């Protein structure tokens, strides 16, 4: 039995290690995407590569981070002291190419304590479009692929590798700055974990890393015990893949208490989901795991439960290879991480709404509305190269007890916006409008949150790429609540307005405006009866 006092103290201290890594990374990074939007995560793992603590930043990184550590161990067998491994390969520990992950082992007096990892979304890693969130047909078009390799070996930085990476991006100085920030975060994580080992002894620390996973597992099992035995199925669709393949289904069956032994209390089976497709909406297994992890963590509804591997122990996930939820090499995957992950969350919540009625809200906007505006060096004389990437919030689904938030990021992301005043200083762009889309939330006993409208004027010719969802199929309402309004993308050339598809990439000219209307959240429950 663990000491309940030490359990509480080490729970806080281990999560403080991850938090402090995050503070360091956020503060020292270069790109607005990391500093201002905070698109990064940090985590601590035990010597078996099981996650023991994660700083709460971006849920889509959650389930994926442990696979990064495992991929490094598979590749190298073991990491030596003062090694740092780097990777972004979606098929070997990554999620999509812009997310670059660093993994370091932590040793103390010769003993392996565990690992620390940091993952950050880099604003450009090459590929066919500035911002590296293109509409592509295969992985190779999406940017530089980094399999697990050693960025630092026994304390010596591999400068040649760094040069190779920066040479393959449109913004090398920024990449170097952001990678330096990640290295700084790794160092902080290593030092803090070593300090814990020094203070509490290696054996005690390792033992409590395990106790903390048991603790999260206990909390998870208690929640799962409340679900009546049975099968709960839900199906929703992705609008399209950007290459004409439409209405791509994602299906899930949640089976509660599949065995007598109760070793596995929940099986989550994505059988029936569409085969992987041409465009980048393919999600790798890591992304699917992240969505499952996120939903389970939310259902626990207790902020104090440590976010660690214990949560997963009573759960089995089946994602058939070659489908949208477990794409195989060399599928393009840029949007799988940001868009398909949202739909996976939607179907999971749809299934749990039946399993745990009253605890699950209606669908939220179900997209991140990825907008990239950039110009490469060929854009014309006197033009600076730039790559601006943002994601836009929308309506949250209503719950049994509250209406949905308006104009917020939902589920798999929680990045901040770039202030208009910061954006206009940094890029040849002007924000014309940024406000709620009134009435876009679904009606109901509790109404869904409203989406946003954001309109940006280009002050220079640029390539515009949009990866968005829920333009054709609306976020669902629950128990009589109405659906939220789908989103809509527009391109204004002078007075002419052209409705854009949900996924597109095109050349726009100086003076053009891009308008993104994001979806509203679904309503919850029947509208109150009008009294006559």
């Amino acid at each position, binding site marked *: 039995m663990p000491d*309940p*006092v030490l359990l*509480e*103290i080490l729970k806080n201290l281990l999560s403080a290690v991850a938090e*402090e890594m995050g503070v*360091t990374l956020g*503060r*020292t990074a*270069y*790109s*607005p995407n990391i*500093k*201002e939007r905070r698109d990064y995560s940090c985590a601590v793992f035990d010597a078996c590569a099981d996650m023991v603590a994660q700083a*709460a*930043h971006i849920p889509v990184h959650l389930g994926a981070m442990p696979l990064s550590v495992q991929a490094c161990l598979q590749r190298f067998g073991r990491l030596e002291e003062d090694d740092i491994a780097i990777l972004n390969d979606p098929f070997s520990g990554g999620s999509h190419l812009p997310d670059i992950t660093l993994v370091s082992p932590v040793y103390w007096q010769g003993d392996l304590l565990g690992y620390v990892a940091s993952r950050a979304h880099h604003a450009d890693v090459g590929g066919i479009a500035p911002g590296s969130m293109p509409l592509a047909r295969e992985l190779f078009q999406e940017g530089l692929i980094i399999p697990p390799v050693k960025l630092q070996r026994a304390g010596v930085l591999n400068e040649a590798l760094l040069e190779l990476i920066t040479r393959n991006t449109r913004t090398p*100085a*920024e990449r170097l*700055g952001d990678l*330096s920030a990640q290295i700084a975060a790794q160092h902080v994580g290593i030092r803090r974990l070593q300090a814990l080992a020094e203070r509490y002894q290696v054996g005690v620390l390792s033992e409590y890393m395990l106790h903390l996973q048991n*603790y999260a597992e*206990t*909390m998870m099992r*208690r929640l799962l015990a409340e679900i009546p035995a049975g099968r709960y199925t839900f199906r929703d669709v992705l609008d399209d893949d950007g290459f004409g393949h439409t209405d791509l289904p994602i299906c899930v069956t949640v089976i509660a208490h599949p065995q007598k032994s109760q070793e596995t209390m929940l099986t989550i089976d994505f059988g029936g989901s569409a085969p992987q497709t041409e465009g980048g909406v393919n999600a790798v297994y890591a992304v699917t795991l992240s969505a499952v992890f*996120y939903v389970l963590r939310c259902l*626990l*509804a207790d*902020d*104090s*439960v440590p*976010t660690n591997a214990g949560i997963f122990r009573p759960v089995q996930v089946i994602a058939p290879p070659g489908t949208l939820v477990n794409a195989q090499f060399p599928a393009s995957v840029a949007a799988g991480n940001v868009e398909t992950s949202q739909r996976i969350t939607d179907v999971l919540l749809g299934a749990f709404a039946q399993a745990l009625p009253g*605890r699950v*809200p209606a669908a939220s906007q179900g997209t991140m509305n990825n907008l990239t505006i950039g110009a490469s060096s060929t854009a014309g004389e006197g033009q600076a190269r730039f790559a601006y990437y943002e994601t836009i*919030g929308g309506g*949250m689904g209503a*719950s*049994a007890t*509250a*209406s949905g*938030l*308006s*104009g*917020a*990021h*939902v589920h798999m992301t*929680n*990045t*901040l*916006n770039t*202030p*208009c*005043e*910061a954006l*206009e*200083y940094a890029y040849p762009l002007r924000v*014309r*409008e*940024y*406000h*709620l889309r009134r009435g876009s939330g679904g009606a109901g006993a509790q109404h869904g949150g409203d989406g946003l409208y954001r*309109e940006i004027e280009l002050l220079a010719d640029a390539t515009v790429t949009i990866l968005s969802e829920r333009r054709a199929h609306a976020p669902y309402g629950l128990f009589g609540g109405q659906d939220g309004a789908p989103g809509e993308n527009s391109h204004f050339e002078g007075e002419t307005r052209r409705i854009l598809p949900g996924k597109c990439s095109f050349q726009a000219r100086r003076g053009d405006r891009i308008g993104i209307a994001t979806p509203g959240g679904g309503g919850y429950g029947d509208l109150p009866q009008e009294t006559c």
Partner: protein
Amino acid sequence: MDSELCSVGVDIGGTFTDLVYRTAQGLRVHKLLTTRQDESLAFLQGLDALEVAAQAQVAHGTTVATNALLEHRGARTALIVTAGFGDILTIGRQARPALYRLSFAPRFCPAPEELTGEVAERVLPTGEILLALDPAEARRVVEECLQRGAESLAVCLLFSFANPQHEQMIGEIAAQCARERQRSLFVSLSSEILPEYREFERASTTVLNAYVAPILGRYLENLEQGLLRRGHRSLWVMQSSGGILSANAARREAVRSLLSGPAAGVTGAFHTARQAGFDHLITFDMGGTSTDVSLLDGAIRRTSEGSVEGWPARTPMMDIHTVGAGGGSIAWVDSGGALRVGPQSAGSQPGPACYGRGGSEAPFTVTDANLLLGRLHPDYFLGGRMRLDRAAAQRSAAPLADRLGMSQLALARGVIRIANAHIEQALRVISVERGFDPRAFTLLPFGGAGPMHALDLAAALHIRQVLIPRYPGVLSALGLTLADYVKDYSQTVMWPLAQTDLGLFRQAFAPLLQRAAHDLAQEGFQPAEIHFEPAVDLRYKGQSFELTIALEVLPEDSSAGAIYQPAALAARLFAAHQQRYGYAVTQAVEVVTVRLAGRGLRPQAEESALPASHAAAKAAAHTEILFDDHFLPAAVYAREHLQPGHKLQGAAMIVQEDATSIIPPGWSGQVDERLNLIFRPTNGTEAADA
């Protein structure tokens, strides 16, 4: 300003109103219960009790503005913004407040949606006007706000810091409309309150100001009348930055006092420590519900990243980190079987179980744990005016101890360890995470509970010196008698550093300097009492967080050339970046904002040193305190009988009306010539880890 050394500090807290009266003869202290209905009552009663002279300067720390915001009792506030950006407050930074929550209760907004107006206009980052404001439209929007009952108006237009013309026009129109309708309307312009970039943060700061200013204004007016009847002609109010403002300035810029609660205490702590010869300090103020932590590296450190209830208030404040662990924090067992402490607190009503006011359901708190371990003496609490009920503490401990299968003493010890771990983490955030090694600092605890936990925390952080001030419980009121007048001015400029020269800096600082000189003269400061503190916010181009670099002289100074040289400024950024983040690079730098603090110096007070006593300290009683696993005999000393030169050895307890200090074995201390207690590990060896 009157330079006679005579001032009184009045700090109003949730339970007590503290007064410190400083005259040439020394300090006098008075403590009375806060009068919640009208806080000015206890304030004035206290002045009467101390027979404060009419010419004394009165400085006040108040949470009236903060409470109005927390309890949603502010003015009915309207907001006018650039057309197309009407939902600026709702959208905020577009993030949801918690990551793993599927549903959120509606959030309080200080400027309701129906009172938000939009005007067509647009200013560019350069300050150029792209679309001119139509005064007729502005008038229509203001009229509409008034019709809907606005008592206060905030105006925040895009890029107004680069060109305030449109905001100023709306301000004038609003004043005129209010006059015509014979309505009172408080107007707050973002370009005046916070002329800095980032529209949401600026709008929020301006709205908070508009929301609380009328409330603070009414309170201060009422108080000033009471003071005037007693012959006091001036009233000063503490701001979040640690400087004081005249009541007149404070009511116009009420947002500047929103986070002032902990500021006076840190000011008092800094003064006390400097007199004792220490200027690198980590302070912690442990009260009933929370602990405020700050670090001083020869100066008080400031930040502008404050917020209240999630609403940013970006005016300068002390860099203070707060953690929800205090004497009243409640111990409980969560469903995973871990022992937890806080963040729920028993507060002062009903308070910890041992106060005997909570009946049989009273929760077990940190204070109860301290009592069971012998770290609080039942006979000496609040100067013996309140007897602590040990049996009640045991009753509240029993169910928790049973559930965890621990003895009550093990439980109590665990509760203290967890509370200490929370505070230790806060101490690390303020030191290690900011790039400072805590071992190079002196720990200075204050607040009623601080000195009870200080030496254990010092041991955990390997801090080798602890200073316990003479009056740990009234340090805020003391700080109020000492704080300088400080008014802060800023302006976002966003220049590439390489393209700057001295002339450009002079141009940018000139209007700030002019306003500062004007304001300080108005408050009655003579040129010799005025000090200007320029600073610049710098960052690497492309980064979005700035570091504030304090500069020694104004750009018009004869020695400014070397300091304001681009290469010299870049070097300062590199050094600051290295210190804070552990690395620096050579890259293009931007000047984001220029800042100026206008300081009106108050006479510096010196408490006179007392002669050393050669007698030994006499214990008032003996007790037993649990350290690690054993009860050890410990002497109990009465603080008021300790004389300079007295030496103390752990294990010991020092009792006084406003605090209890615990000295574990392995620590020894001495009373200094101003009656502070200074502790160090015995024999220079490190004290054992708690």
